[in-house]
């Protein structure tokens, strides 16, 4: 049964230094408020998993929280590079980080395999790609029935997954709507999970096939209004494309980034990103 906690308490309880953490949300519903809470609590040596690191991991990497990043597409969508990720990989600032890169298909399958309790994901992938030569977690196996050579990657099984969603009811059941990404898979694959929501309602008011994650499959639910900004929450607010564009200049420069972090994360008394951008 999900416990209702403040975002501060949920992160303090479940995100330990050195943990493997997946904060998911495929462009949509990116859990920025939770990411900022992790930065504020100065968590260190995290292995961060996410298909598209996006600005959220750029911020966590720049803040020194990450020791390793596992991803499949590391850019600022439609804008360009993630400069904090690049600075860490290329110049070791603020610390050296290790990267392990996959394709989207591999990571999507790996999350699904994690949710299914399997040790690996098997799929038809990486044919002719040189990614297997730089990632020792990509292997090939032979189908025992047809002999076809197929790709295999370990399943993703994070210590804690953090996702954002539209709303929860009072039992902690959570509704995820719109682009659902790998959110459900991330929650089910993890030992612990934190789901931040826009609001708590009496009734989820949904249809039979909606993407609902039962409260008993979630560790903690925390309210974080506008908790996905500058990403968006379908049905609540739009993506701030303007901020994604502005981020390029902020993230390019170490001082500008540090200042931004001070102003908007460390000294943000409201404790959510939504009011600061």
């Amino acid at each position, binding site marked *: 049964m999900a416990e209702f906690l403040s975002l501060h308490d949920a992160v303090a309880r479940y995100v330990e230094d050195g943990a493997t953490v997946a904060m998911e949300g495929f462009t949509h519903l990116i859990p920025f408020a939770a990411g900022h809470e992790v930065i504020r609590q100065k968590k260190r040596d995290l292995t961060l998993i996410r298909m598209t690191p996006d600005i959220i991991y750029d911020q966590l990497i720049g803040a020194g929280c990450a020791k390793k990043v596992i991803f499949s597409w590391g*850019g600022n*969508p439609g804008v360009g590079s993630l400069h904090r990720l690049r600075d860490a990989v290329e110049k070791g600032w603020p610390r050296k980080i290790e990267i392990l890169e996959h394709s989207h298909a591999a990571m999507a399958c790996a999350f699904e395999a994690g949710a299914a309790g399997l040790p690996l994901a098997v799929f038809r992938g990486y044919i002719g790609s040189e990614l297997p030569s730089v990632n020792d977690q990509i292997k090939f196996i032979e189908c025992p029935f047809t002999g076809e050579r197929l790709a295999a990657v370990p399943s993703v099984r994070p210590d804690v997954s953090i996702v954002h969603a539209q709303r929860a009811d009072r039992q902690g059941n959570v509704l995820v709507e719109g682009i*659902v990404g790998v959110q459900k898979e991330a929650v089910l694959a993890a030992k612990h999970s934190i789901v931040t929501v826009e609001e708590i309602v009496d009734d989820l008011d949904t249809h039979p096939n909606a993407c609902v994650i039962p409260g008993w499959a979630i560790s903690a639910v925390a309210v974080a209004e506008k908790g996905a900004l500058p990403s968006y929450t379908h049905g609540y607010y739009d993506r701030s494309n303007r901020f*994604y564009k502005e981020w390029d200049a902020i993230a390019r420069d170490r001082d500008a980034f540090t200042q931004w972090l001070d102003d908007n994360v460390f000294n943000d008394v409201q404790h959510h990103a939504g009011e600061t951008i």
Partner: protein
Amino acid sequence: MSLEYTSSEMMSVTAARALENGMTCFVGIGLPSEAANLARLTHAPDVVLIYESGTLQTKPDILPLSIGDGELCESALTTVAVPEMFRYWLQGGKVDVGFLGTAQIDRFANLNTTLIGDYKAPKVRLPGGGGAPEIATNAGEVFITLKHSKRAFVKDVDFVTTLGFGRDGKGRDNVPNIGKGPTRVITDLCVMKPDPETKELVVVSLHTGVSREDVIEATGWEIRFAEQLESTPEPSENELTILRELKARTERAHAGA
């Protein structure tokens, strides 16, 4: 009198025309997305556009800045989870064409979106593979569109993120359950297709006002030209109007929020 248009517009219109009505197309963000939506708004109203964010049969009114913009979901027939998108729809063989962009491409149409330089000490770190490695092998065929330059068109890519025909042109030979691979590359100067035997890219059509020298100058290997070199048909007034309206709507929307 012929219409006035830019080389970028020529590229988008030519890329759009490559898509036939009724095709199912897995769309990459950026130039492919612009071309695919232009096709849908002109000659191919029944083209099915799929984006890796899970949006199936989507009809965005503006071009998405990111692969997961709300517009894609709101205008889609349905939206599925990302694992389902890659497993059932792409790997399951439901996609006719993968439409991709790239940072680097070589003479065998291998794509590099990983990095420039050496993997351990990159000169420029690029975003990475994303959906492309499996789109390029699981889709029936692949169209590629990007601007022509010596930096982008190199003899050998620094890193094969995504298979064209491999470093020797034979990367798809005897591989079961694999698509045809790149069948055309559309740039702002020309259209290229792989040689049926060697799989090396060959210029089959030059855009109006572009010379062989222009293409040679912008290509990092000794580019060959087809014996029957054609002139790419120019954009129509209707195509240009719809493309410009689409881009203007997009710009207004992205500046807003």
